[in-house]
């Protein structure tokens, strides 16, 4: 299922494995953490796209994106205007994964 045109560029398997060892106080708390990670991805990916896409195309891109966020044509739109955009997004996602892993690994040890 691709709900967003960049879904195929995001796979955080290591984060998933690390989080599975946490004993969340409730299923809702676990979902909350998952959702914050999810939201962080969208902000970082969108910032990355806008950083590289020439300013004159921003409005058109945002308009297309908000009307049809899943459409694979959005990637074509970006590819036509930004060289190696897929690789750029992948790198951004990888960088975010590293930062999140660091956060996850640095969580305090306590009695459970």
């Amino acid at each position, binding site marked *: *299922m691709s709900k967003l045109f960049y879904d195929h560029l995001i796979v955080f398997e290591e984060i998933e494995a690390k989080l599975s060892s946490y004993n969340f106080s409730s299923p809702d708390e676990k979902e909350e953490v998952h959702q914050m990670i999810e939201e962080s991805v969208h*902000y970082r990916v969108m910032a990355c796209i*806008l950083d590289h896409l020439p300013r004159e195309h921003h409005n058109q891109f945002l308009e297309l994106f908000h009307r049809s*966020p899943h*459409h694979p044509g*959005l990637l074509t739109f970006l590819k036509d205007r930004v060289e190696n955009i897929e690789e750029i997004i992948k790198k951004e996602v990888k960088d975010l994964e590293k930062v999140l892993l660091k956060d996850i690994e640095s*969580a305090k040890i306590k*009695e459970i």
Partner: protein
Amino acid sequence: MKGKSAQDLKEKIKSRHQAIREKFSQKHPHAQSFFQDRRIELGKIRQHSSKLLTAGTLAGALLLNSPSPSTLLASSLSEKPIKEISEIGLDSPEESRDFLVEQIKKIIPQMVCPLTPEQEKNIAFIIEKLTGIRARATLEGEHLNTCFGLIGAEQHLPRFPGDSVSLHDGFRRSGITPGRGAWGYFVQSREKLQPDDIQREKYYVAVQTLYLPDWEKRLPYLRDWYKYRKVLVLNPQTGKAVVAVVADSGPAAWTGKHFGGSPEVMYELGLHKGPRKGPVLLFFVDDAENKVPLGPIQYDKIDLSKVQMNESS
């Protein structure tokens, strides 16, 4: 016993999340305003997308150069599989699985993606014809975001407070989740554990209820509706299939997967080795009388002479 603090983790992720959001609005205020003006939260863009796709408001809304794979495939659908099934009759159970695989491969796209209503209907028909199970993509008006996605291996779920992996019948190496499933414990104590509860944990799946377009709006109803909802999961590459219940939510979208399967479910689907994930079809089971047992579909034991079809459903 010592472990990492989930509370501390939550605080760290929260701080990171806030910092990322703030940086975005500082660097791209025009984009921030764009989304605000349209009352869209960028962080919840997945739910927004689900809503758009569900409502079907995309039709003709956007004219981009490359068409979506599902659009291309929809046009190549035909009634042929249904006719072929009618022609072979109902007396060849040993060939059912191979035939099912062959026919489903003709319908589904190569890559996982949401199916068209027609694809869903044809697959449901084939499954019902060859297994006798009334599989439905939409049941009582409810529909998952996709029926064709990647399933990944999950751990055992604790069935009651204090449950441990050593108390489970098999697949102990898969481990057990430290916390409860999304619908809580199956029972409140070990003494109350019944054979049905054991079966539910053995054959459970996780589905992405969180990303349903109206999940938050209809939470009380949907939470009850999905709890232990019976589903049929089918590996379209092998025809191996299992009836399971929904007992957890997830996986998160950023895992690249769309469903989760218990160790037993993954084993029955033949997806318990290697990457422990693969494409599956997941349909609700229309079983109001609760007659369909949980567990693997055994094609050789299906009495096809008793299978009744209702093409209009």
